[in-house]
């Protein structure tokens, strides 16, 4: 019983943070929606939920890596738009898709490099990267248009063995993230670095002989690559390049990560929590669409949720 209450409140003694409560929220929202509107339990709507949720799940999982070590990446929204713009440039898929990942890795590397080598605050580094990428995206594609390679479209819209493709995207994303976070030394080192940062001893992990800078850079590369993956998925859904498709996505991703019990100051959090957090956001969006809530006020509601979630997390540090 005490173990359960500890899980619920996310008290110390767990590194996974509070994830059971958001899971209950997911179920509660689902229950409420199925009682409220007939369309929710409709097979078509349920089938749509997975592709609707997928870009956020992928981005949030990437964002979680940098948040765990006490960082933040505000450039993922622009990264998503940028990816759709690159895919819509009109070239062969075999060149465009690897190019997208190489570019994402480059952006992630720049973020990490600037943060670790020049002592720039992650928020400032990634905020400026957000604008630089947005500018480049608008040069490539001032308004939405162009066409993305067919293979991208069918990889999102089609199905395999009767199972819709987005499910496989989800499986691959989670498998890769699970391996990185729980099945490698890198994952443990992420928690170690975050543990040092959030307890105020920035070089604690370094003193244990961990190559902290390299791991931090790697986390930003992973974050950017996951954003690129989300961008490819979105490009497949909208079938074109759109300079605004990723707008404010970084905030949704941060909200999802925070809802899932991951502490924004680092060190505490979990992959399943993040997925649950993303599902909360996706279900909310789905429910608001079904109940005809104005898309404008949806932005406001999402912002208010973010405010609420971060206000509930206590933090020692003040400021940025």
């Amino acid at each position, binding site marked *: 019983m005490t173990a359960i209450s500890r899980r619920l409140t996310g008290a110390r*003694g767990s590194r996974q943070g509070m994830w059971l409560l958001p899971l209950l929220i997911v179920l509660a929202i689902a229950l409420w929606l199925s009682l409220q509107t007939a369309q929710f339990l409709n097979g078509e709507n349920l089938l749509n939920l997975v592709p609707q949720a997928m870009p956020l799940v992928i981005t949030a999982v990437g964002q979680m890596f940098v948040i765990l070590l006490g960082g933040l990446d505000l450039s993922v929204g622009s990264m998503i738009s940028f990816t759709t713009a690159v895919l819509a440039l009109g070239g062969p898929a075999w060149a465009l898709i690897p190019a997208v990942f190489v570019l994402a890795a480059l952006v992630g590397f720049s973020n990490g490099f600037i943060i670790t080598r020049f002592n720039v605050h992650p928020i400032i580094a990634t905020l400026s990267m957000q604008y630089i990428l947005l500018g480049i995206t608008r040069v490539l594609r001032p308004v939405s248009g162009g066409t993305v390679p067919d293979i991208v479209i069918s990889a999102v819209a089609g199905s395999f063995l009767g199972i819709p493709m987005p499910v496989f995207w989800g499986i691959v994303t989670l498998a890769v993230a699970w391996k990185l976070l729980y099945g*490698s030394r890198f994952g*443990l080192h992420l928690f170690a670095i*975050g543990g040092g940062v959030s*307890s105020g001893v920035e070089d604690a*992990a*370094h*003193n*244990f*002989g961990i190559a902290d800078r390299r791991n931090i850079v790697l986390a930003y590369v992973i974050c950017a690559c996951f954003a690129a993956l989300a961008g490819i998925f979105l490009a497949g859904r909208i079938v074109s390049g759109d300079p605004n498709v990723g707008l404010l996505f970084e905030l949704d991703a941060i909200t999802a990560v925070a809802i899932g019990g991951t502490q924004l100051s680092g060190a505490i959090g979990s992959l399943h929590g993040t997925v649950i957090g993303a599902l909360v956001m996706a279900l909310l969006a789905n429910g608001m669409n079904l109940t005809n809530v104005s898309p404008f006020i949806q932005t406001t509601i999402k912002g208010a949720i973010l405010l609420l979630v971060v206000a509930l997390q206590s933090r020692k540090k003040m400021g940025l």
Partner: protein
Amino acid sequence: MSEIRKAFAGTAALKGVSITLQSGSVHALMGENGAGKSTLMKILAGVHQPDGGAILRDGRQVVFHRPKDALEAGISTVFQELSLLPNLTIAENMFLGREPTAAFGGVDHRRMRREAGKALAELGLTLDPGTLVSRLSIGERQFVEIAHGIMTDASVFILDEPTAALNAADVEVLNRHIRRLKDEGKAVVYISHRMDEIFAICDTVTVLKDGELVGTRPLAEMTPATLIAMMVGRELADLFPQRGDAPGPVVLSVEDFRITERSKPFSLSLSRGEIVALAGLEGQGQQRFLRSLVGQYYPFAGRVTIKGKALPLPVPSGGGVRRLQAMGVGFVPEDRKEDGLFLGLSVAHNIAAALHSKRSELALAEGYQRLIADTMSSLAVKAGGPGAAVGTLSGGNQQKVLLGRYLAADIDILLVEEPTRGVDIGAKSEIYRLLRDFARKGGAVLVLSRETIELIGLCDRICVVHNDTIVKEMPAADATEHNILDAALGANGTARIINDSH
């Protein structure tokens, strides 16, 4: 290590120190706080890089750019500050940086737990290696840290004050392992303030003072008295000012104070003209008690009266310092760089900070030039002028500026943590004189320090804190290091100290 030099922000921490470690021997490194012991060892452990000098291993020069290099060269360190990561398990902490891998590059958690459990058992601990460190007590953490350090396959072991939070029985377990390492032909560096430990297990002693080497001697030739004389460099009596006369009226009284729910209540009173010490082993509640008064911790129960006025408990954490300042009480935090000074700002700003704090935001800021100049000259602060950045001053002058802030702010009760941490011997003597002058003029001082000798020399009365309560009170004139340690260890028939139930 030969001719090692290191400076931090222009202040020399080590001025050409050489030390030779031999295998099969335990080498004590002694000196007062700030003498450079920890810095020297951090250089050996690869945490800091020396500005000059060389590290020779078996006659060949080695360079450690990072802690990992030192680890790989077979140098294992137990640091003074607890550096375990709270969100990792005991096993993960012990193997951090050298985790065993399983198939497909995964971490072999099972093996880590097994081996960590074995290492803990050898030290007589029955903790589950899968426990998160955040759930351990301070004493347990220290033991895990020791296990992490000495269970490594290394040839040089550095133990930087490993016993600060351990009780006598645990210290004995540790000593047994140090002897084992010695018998296995390893070299051990042992840093401690506790004379009995030094004489019990060490073979050689090197004494540092103000970043310089005083000498290296076989311990067989030394007695505790000659060792202290070597550390201090002069007769103790010269260092401290004369004690005060009969104390005046009580200005601070603490009654039935319980630091935590489980701790025993205690009382304490502080009078004008008096300097009272809070002594004891580290982490026994002295600091927690002082900081409860400024609102950093919420005590469980108690009554505090300051100059006849009751201080409502708990003190609010945000405004506690302000409330006490308004009552004429100044709190001087121990870590002057992190918690005390504005290193990048001028001496004048640092001194005037508490003066401004008493006034309304919208009031015109006064210059206080006169008061600042007076404070600087009465404290004999050596600085380029009131406009010099505090970060450029020496440790002793920084400490004087910090004290000056509270002295200038018309305060008559001072709560001081570690008044002379990391300052040289000359400045120490001056700071003792300043505190004594302050008391003589009717002030009252409650002081907390790790250095027992300092407390004996400086204070009028000593309260020994153990297990979150005051276990013994004695006049400083009758106190010796030995009887304070006895009380601090709970040796006089009282209970054993820390977490002995595991």
